[in-house]
């Protein structure tokens, strides 16, 4: 075991894993985080806490992760390289580990121009692959990026993202391979709607034997309405919501139910794809639907490991 977190244990047990996402509030309310944790903790194995997602300032992922940890939930602390340099990131990781956080997801982060502080200076001191490498070095060699020694162990279960739907498509597998080589233990993908494209990406992943080196959790985002489907199709970079999905949501009499049905169909297919070890459900602002999705997908109860 690298960090011995619940997420690591469930993935290592070979069981189909479920993670979910909880965005911290645009304010100081611990209850918001705790309420999301309460909604999600019984139906998933770990909860991702986003880090200024879409470049909008929120409570830090570190604090959000701690609030979940205090509830007895296993958090995945997300870190984007947009907002902090190598000094700040390494010190946050030491603090997080000291307080019992073991899972970290390494991300580049959306460009600051998308957020509520578009005039901010983007940091990007290191990139997400270099961040993975840095965390692996902290854990395995007990050294900082500078080569200085760290006192004590830094147990970490290191995650990374993959987007099979961004371009160039052929290079996406090479980029995944680089993340694994850098030290990623688990991967959470961008939301899958185009299952055929995802399947062909997974075939390329498996052909290179990468599925045996890393745990891949396929991302899903339940769609609430036709408007949301259109928005994701037209404005969210690297998400491939198809016209068929938009049409289906537009025709639906009860869009929320249709959205759940759609996501369940996708999860059913994802479960059958070799190399997919779980799903990562990002129900942004719709956390209360996750339990129903997990139950209807036949993934309850979550294993006690």
């Amino acid at each position: 075991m690298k960090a011995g977190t619940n997420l690591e244990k469930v993935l290592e047990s070979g069981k189909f894993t479920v993670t979910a996402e909880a965005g911290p509030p645009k304010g100081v309310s611990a209850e918001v985080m705790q309420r999301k944790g309460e909604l999600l903790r019984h139906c998933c194995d770990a909860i991702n806490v986003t880090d200024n997602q879409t470049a909008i300032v929120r409570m830090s992922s570190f604090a959000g992760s701690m609030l979940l940890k205090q509830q007895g939930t296993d958090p995945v602390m997300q870190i984007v390289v947009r907002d902090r340099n190598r000094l700040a990131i390494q010190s946050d990781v030491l603090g997080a580990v000291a307080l019992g956080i073991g899972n970290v997801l390494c991300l580049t982060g959306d460009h600051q121009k998308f957020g509520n502080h578009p005039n901010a200076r983007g940091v990007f001191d290191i990139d997400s692959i270099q961040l993975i490498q840095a965390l692996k070095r902290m854990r395995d060699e007990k050294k900082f990026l500078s080569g200085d020694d760290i006192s004590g162990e830094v147990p970490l279960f290191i995650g990374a993202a993959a987007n099979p739907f961004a371009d160039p498509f052929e290079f996406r597998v090479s980029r995944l391979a680089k993340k694994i080589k850098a030290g990623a233990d688990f991967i959470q993908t961008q939301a899958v709607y185009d299952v055929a494209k995802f399947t062909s990406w997974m075939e390329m992943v498996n052909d290179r034997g990468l599925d045996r080196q890393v745990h891949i959790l396929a991302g899903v985002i339940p769609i609430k309405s036709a408007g949301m489907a259109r928005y994701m199709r037209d404005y969210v970079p690297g998400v491939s919501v198809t016209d068929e999905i938009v049409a289906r949501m537009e025709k639906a009499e009860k869009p929320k139910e249709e959205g759940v049905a759609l996501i369940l169909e996708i999860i059913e297919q994802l479960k059958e794809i070799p190399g997919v070890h779980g799903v990562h459900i990002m129900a942004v602002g719709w956390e209360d639907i996750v339990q129903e999705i997990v139950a209807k997908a036949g993934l309850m109860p979550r294993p006690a490991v």
Partner: protein
Amino acid sequence: MIISEQKPLEEIRKMVADYDKILILGCGTCATVCFAGGEREVAILASALRMAVKIDGKEKVFHEHTVKRQCEWEFIDEISEKLKEVDAVLPLSCGIGVQAIAERFPNCRVLPGVNTCFLGLTEEAGIWSERCVACGNCLVHETGGICPIARCAKSLSNGPCGGSVGGKCEISPDVSCAWQLIIDHLVALGQLDRLEEIQPPRDWSSSHSGGPRKIVYPFQEGNQAEVER
């Protein structure tokens, strides 16, 4: 080339408000090529300002002059006499020229007439784009001759990020994804395998992060030691 862009007339009007005699000073090099501050722009700006102050009912005098290069002492010394007739100078040069004027003529009020934008290339007449951020640590031999530090919005050394779609950057459909360009170029060269290697964290100490930079050529080293003493 250093690409600059003239500030909006309104902003320049506010800057000159407190002065009566102003020298608009063009630069014959980069600022001329990018239509920000050559002889022609000096003349156009001078007439625009004359018109503006007339409307405001003020009396101001605008002198016009263009030097070959504002970033070298020998070319700016020629304006010392002209400066005696004015109470401010409005250089239409990049930040280097503006500061050279301020440094050479410390009693002179200096009002920057352009914004210095980037180190770039004239793609075609009237179109300029950034190519270099002067990071002091060139890596383009690894990236097919295309700089991801200057041309990727996130300066990624191991790109592309998940926002690259259809060859475009997530920040704008008008911006090419530098990593798509790099990959296309390396594919054409049959060298895509170069990208399998993980690039280590960059040494930013050679960039502005390391503080203002200076290069002293060997024959100057003695003089430099003298100056510092």
